[in-house]
């Protein structure tokens, strides 16, 4: 009877998959993986699960990102521009190009790697290594350490620093001249062209994911999901809609799955009898009753344009709960919500109420601005 294969550690196995092993260890781990189905399956399983996580929707749409950009630029606009740095500190783009290659590293090419010749050579290498090291590993499903995957090896090189130095000239002007006529792309397209290193959904693990999805489709029962989706709250107005459903980049409804209709700010304040903007006449009891629903909007980003009003109500709710002597955490929290309400406000009334409440609160707790 043939002995159980000796597995690499999980650390090495996953580091191999991530392209994080040194060249010598990588050879050893790869030699094992090529001949060990259980290790390959584990790598493929993890790859598929992570691809699914990576492919989950953004949950917010372009409108949010545009507001974010606007808000950030307002804030940095009030800052002094960073001090210009000497030209000799600047370097070439080689590093970024290498980084780009890394981001597009393909999935492990098991089929190719599994060629008979490679496998034979691999077995020999491992055998020699194990004999030399006198390594004895017990049970089969306890891998030792492998190395980074072959396709990820390119990623290792990505970190190599470029030795070249940009020429000492007015790079700013040069860059503008060089690109002046070229750009016609929209903001949306620049999003998809994220920085070289930014993750691209469904990239290297796509094949494994597809394989897994096919298996899932054969074995899973769709009914529970449909039931859950069907029971999803339908409190939002048809136009209000949910961060997911209303997101400009959300995909159209298809198949048998209905688009969910989460609560909106409007539906929440209507349900709890609150005015659109907090005012002195609103009772504490009403605010506390509505707080969980408002917090839900806060959590899922469902407040959208009404985010400032939600913040204002949340500040009031925490204030009520904290009583007359809030601790430092509560003070920070309350002030944070008021400040964000001010900066996010889309209407003068909300901004004005939030500002006066913040000032009043800070005076109350002895932190007069």
């Amino acid at each position, binding site marked *: 009877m043939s002995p159980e294969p000796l597995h690499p550690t999980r650390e090495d196995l996953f580091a191999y998959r991530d392209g994080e092993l040194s060249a010598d260890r990588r050879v050893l781990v790869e030699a094992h993986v090529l001949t060990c189905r259980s290790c390959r399956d584990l790598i493929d399983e993890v790859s598929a699960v992570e691809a699914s996580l990576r492919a989950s929707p953004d949950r917010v749409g372009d409108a949010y990102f545009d507001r974010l950009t606007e808000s950030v630029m307002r804030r940095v606009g009030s800052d002094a521009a960073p001090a210009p740095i000497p030209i000799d500190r600047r370097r070439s783009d080689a590093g970024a190009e290498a980084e780009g290659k890394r981001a597009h590293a393909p999935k492990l090419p098991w089929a190719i790697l599994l060629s008979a010749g490679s496998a034979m050579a691999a077995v020999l290498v491992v055998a020699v290594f194990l004999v030399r090291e006198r390594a004895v590993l017990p049970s089969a499903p306890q891998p030792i350490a492998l190395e980074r995957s072959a396709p990820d090896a390119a990623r290792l090189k990505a970190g190599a620093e470029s030795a070249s130095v940009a020429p000492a000239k007015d790079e700013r002007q040069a860059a503008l001249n060089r690109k002046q006529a070229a750009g016609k792309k929209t903001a949306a397209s620049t999003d998809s062209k994220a920085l070289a290193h930014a993750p691209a959904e469904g990239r290297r693990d796509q094949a494994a994911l597809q394989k897994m999805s096919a298996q899932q489709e054969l074995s899973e029962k769709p009914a529970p999901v449909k039931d859950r989706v069907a029971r*999803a709250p339908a409190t939002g107005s048809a136009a209000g809609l949910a961060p997911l459903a209303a997101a400009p980049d959300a995909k159209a409804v298809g*198949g048998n799955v209905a688009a969910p209709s989460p609560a909106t700010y409007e539906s929440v304040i209507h349900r709890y009898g609150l005015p659109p903007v907090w005012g002195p006449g609103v009772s504490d009891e009403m605010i506390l009753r509505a707080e969980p629903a408002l917090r839900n909007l806060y959590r899922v980003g469902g407040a959208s344009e009404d985010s400032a009003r939600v913040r204002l109500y949340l500040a009031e709710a925490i204030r009520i709960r904290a009583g007359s002597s809030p601790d430092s955490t509560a003070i920070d929290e309350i002030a944070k919500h008021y400040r964000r309400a001010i900066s996010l406000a889309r209407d003068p009334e909300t901004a004005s109420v939030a500002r006066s409440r913040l000032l009043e609160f800070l005076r109350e707790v002895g932190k007069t601005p």
Partner: protein
Amino acid sequence: MTPPRPDRADLSDQDIVRLVQGGESDAFAEFVRRTRRAAYRLARRITRNHEDADDVLQESFVKAYRALDRFDSGKPIGPWFLTIVARTALSSLRRERRRSASPLDEPGQDGSPPLAERIADPSLDPGSLERRLEIERAYARLSEEHRVILALRVEADLPYAGIAEALGIPVGTVMSRLARAREALVEQMKEPGKVGSDEP
């Protein structure tokens, strides 16, 4: 809002950085546009709610803007910025933990919308959606430590050295923690309810 400048859309990341370093602060809008989705996904994975993720992004972009003059424009800026986002999100998480012990983005907890509502992609067939739900639930059941390191690897695609820098731990610890997190995730898929263990 700041109108996108077409002449900047095709500039390399390095060119954008140099423009900002050279005093053209409006070029920073292009940087924001290029990084905001990846940054949001990372922040959301760590903070587990939209508004905190939003706060993290605001803070991170301002920090990045202020630190750009010290950034070496020859290096890729993506990992550098995502490390700022990760650190800021972790600080936010610590603050959140101090003020509330309740989970944030747990599926269906505390009256929050069901997970299906939050991750539903109408284009998915029910089988694929169910699979995605299972994975998201399994991820949500992981310990915070495991969730964070997986977010840094999966959403930010940071190399081990970058993760080590973001978390302030040695690369060897990144290797072992990430391996345990992945094992725990796979385990959760097979045995829902079993809690993955943290560092020994």
